[in-house]
């Protein structure tokens, strides 16, 4: 490889004293000194989350406090990094959700794999999984970074529902078009 020697530019006297450079830098400092701060004192202060933000995926309950997920496993199927793992199961007979028949026995989301794409929320036919405002996940071990079902419901809370699909179905079964 050819080596091309470059002549170093000779500095003027003003440049050699560094005074103009320091002054121009201090100009910005003094200008900002009197303006309100633009940074946040994280974690005491938290940013406002804009609508449509995709935070940590969570499971939500309906306004009656019932589990919405029926473990159809569509989110597990659509998840691009395969972060979701569901163990489906039959709901015990006698419970108030017996007519739904199916629910997750285990629901794990590996937050080390999750890419926050929101496809699980988009695909969910029961509107049970949402990416909400929670954005900071941390832990000391890999196992801590897997959100299990209890944690997912704790993070998710309750969201309003306009369908109550399974309640309607139960009502129809009780006094519907039975023969």
């Amino acid at each position: 490889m050819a080596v091309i020697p470059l002549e170093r530019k000779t500095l003027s006297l003003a440049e050699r004293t560094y005074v103009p450079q320091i002054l121009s830098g201090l100009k910005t400092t003094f200008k900002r000194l009197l303006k309100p701060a633009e940074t946040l004192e994280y974690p005491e202060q938290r940013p406002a989350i804009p609508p449509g933000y995709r935070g940590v995926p969570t499971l939500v309950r309906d306004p009656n406090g019932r589990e919405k997920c029926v473990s159809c496993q569509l989110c597990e199927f659509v998840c691009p990094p395969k972060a979701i793992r569901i163990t489906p199961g039959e709901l015990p007979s006698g419970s108030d959700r017996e007519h739904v028949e199916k629910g997750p026995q285990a629901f794990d989301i590996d937050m080390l794999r999750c890419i926050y794409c929101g496809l699980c929320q988009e695909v969910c036919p029961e509107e049970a999984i949402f990416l909400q405002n929670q954005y900071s996940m941390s832990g000391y071990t890999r196992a801590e970074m897997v959100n299990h079902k209890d944690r997912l419901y704790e993070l998710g809370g309750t969201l309003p529902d306009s369908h109550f699909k399974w309640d309607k179905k139960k009502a129809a079964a009780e006094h519907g078009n039975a023969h």
Partner: protein
Amino acid sequence: MIAPTKPDLVTVNIDGKEIAVPKGTNVIEAARLVNIDVPHYCYHPKLTVVGNCRMCLIEMGMPAVDPATKAPVMDPATGKQKINWIPRPQIGCGTNVSPGLHVRTTSPMVKDAREGVMEFLLINHPLDCPICDQAGECKLQEQSTGYGRGYSRFIEQKNVKPKRTQLGPRVTLDDERCILCSRCIRFSKEVAKDDVLGFIDRGSYSTLTCYPGKQLENNYSLNTVDICPVGALTSTDFRFKMRVWFLKQTNSVDPESSVGANTVVWSREGVIYRITPRRNDAVNDTWMADSGRVLYKQVKSDTRLTTIKVNGADSALDIAIHAAAELCKAGRVAIVGSGRSSVEEQFLTKKLAAALGVSVSLVSRVGQGDKLLISADRNPNVRGALVTGLITALPAAKLTELSAAIDAGTVTTVVSLGEDLATAGLTAAQLTKISVVYLGTHANATSAAAKIILPTLTGFEKSGTFVNQQFRIQKFLKAVPGPVGATDDLVVLAKLVTAAGTAIAASEVGPLWKLIAAEVPALGTMTFANLPETGLLLDATPYAALPFAEGETLHYKPAAQPAAATT
């Protein structure tokens, strides 16, 4: 290019494509031959045609002839014979081809008819897809996407019918999902010969149910689940276990009897979830027995052998092989082969017997055949042992000769290939008298008495071939990896043969087949890879004189009178 029309072929025109098909073929099957899908629910190739779902409506017409002169009427626009189209759609399943028949499967009338049928079928169908086990392999899902309207105009209340009904020990029925195709009813009546299902009530209240006091409990009940086009009939065992779109399908063969029903093993990440039949018109059509579907449970059984043991202590494969070779050299050896081993394993068993210079006996298992897909011979591969030359006569149920030899002291070491010697007629005293080398998958009396235990793989964890009662050689493939501690039977056998003094170059199915093809004349032209999915029929004439135990089953008639079922 049209094949020259033979006497039993008729030429039909489907969507402009000419094809010659055998007489008696219906339009659905004829269209399948030119890769045109005619959607249907109630039609099943192995059941009678009822034509009650109306999904397969097509438009058909015949070439026009002048009624008086019988001369063809030509269409001046095209220069071809004019086609008289029937003004109303016809069902494809109930319409057999006739010479010159013209069919349209994509015309506006057909599309309109399909949309109408789909809309009516979906009126009372519940929105259960998220919790329905059929989702992913549901004809109603597929065809409402492919041929439906795409939105619902139905604002009234859907009918309510019984859900979660147990039709029998293995089948769960959801009547709301049923589209009344009657496939299950016809199957029970025509194939299983156990007429227990029927419809009650009328119109949209029609409900599938068992006859009073009856249950769907025959050994073929789960076939109704397979043929149910929707999620009405579901398997209680597979219920809510896993979504079908996650499952990997591996072709296999049912090892319960010498019928060798073709199967598909459905697994995900090394776990088997279900077994379903695979269509083979020469063996099992599209059916299989329920008893063969639960065999996957033996893979994760509590009694599974997973540690190599020498004299009761944990050991390693090469040490155990060395110890086994020492035992074989020290004592007088007998080998108990198995009719459950694959052809490849039997070939290596023969090699082992030749290397040790000893005889091989097999154990026969004879039960009652059910005249359908369970034959009397419960060993899947006795004929494989005949073809490879491992045995020349049919095995007996009890090892009387071996028993006598042990008592006489002429046999001191027995190598058992997965056969339980205790059930095969040896007493506990005889088992303690001899040294047993046991290659097997599950614990039993023989493994408890064995000096050396070499855990091997079940049929779901290895590849191989079986020769069924028709002398059809069929291959099964590895669906899941074996458990830690178990070794492939072929590896163990090859190591034993090598330790006995004869070098064997191959311990995998593919390379081993080169040796088999070279040494077994009947299999000389084959390789494992080019064996067709539906199997290959071998020449059965050299064995025609043997008194096989099998009676008549589906697609099999015994050549001679079968021997008494108790032998």
